[in-house]
């Protein structure tokens, strides 16, 4: 019985890693610049990619809350939340800048969000959740 539980737990854990890996590769939108402006289409693509990232993060959190993965996931998620909680204000700014076609500020904030999501990825990896190769 104990062996079955361990196999199940490992399987779920590995599936979680695969989820995060797949999601991470979806978030490859490069950086913005004046030559590569943040249009409404690009904003929509970026936000769609971040939705896929958070689909994985929420699956991780749900698995943790259901006790399907080791209990230290609670602390790991809390540490990642330090970074994910910084994203909403940047998103609000980016949306306003894009809608007003303020490309200078939109570019800065777009790249800040991209860096922040990269930090989320590396912070999760540092806590044992493999993201990317």
């Amino acid at each position, binding site marked *: 019985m104990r062996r079955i539980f361990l196999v199940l737990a490992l399987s779920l854990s590995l599936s979680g890693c695969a989820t995060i890996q797949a999601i991470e590769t979806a978030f490859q939108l490069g950086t913005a610049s004046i030559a590569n402006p943040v249009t409404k289409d690009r904003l929509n693509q970026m936000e769609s990619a971040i939705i*896929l990232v958070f689909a994985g*993060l*929420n699956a991780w959190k749900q698995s943790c809350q259901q006790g399907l993965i080791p209990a230290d996931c609670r602390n790991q998620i809390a540490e990642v939340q330090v970074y994910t909680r910084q994203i909403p204000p940047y998103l609000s700014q980016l949306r306003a800048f894009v809608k007003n076609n303020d490309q200078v500020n939109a570019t800065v904030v777009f790249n800040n969000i991209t860096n922040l999501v990269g930090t989320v990825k590396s912070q999760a990896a540092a806590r044992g959740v493999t993201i990317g190769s």
Partner: protein
Amino acid sequence: MDVGAVLALIVKGLGVVSTLVAVGKEAAPAIKVLVDLASGAQNGTVTDDQLAATEKLLDGMIEDFNAPMV
């Protein structure tokens, strides 16, 4: 509209959806994102309504993850 970037995102997103389904997680929001992306690419540009829907969905998902653990 960078159709190549959208297609790449859809392909990667389908991998995400299949993994979410495999681990028994809610995949409907991710599927909706991909459908909207595909329709946006087909129409040539995203509409304000589509963008608003994407933003509403994203805000909800961020809020869910950022909420304290129960």
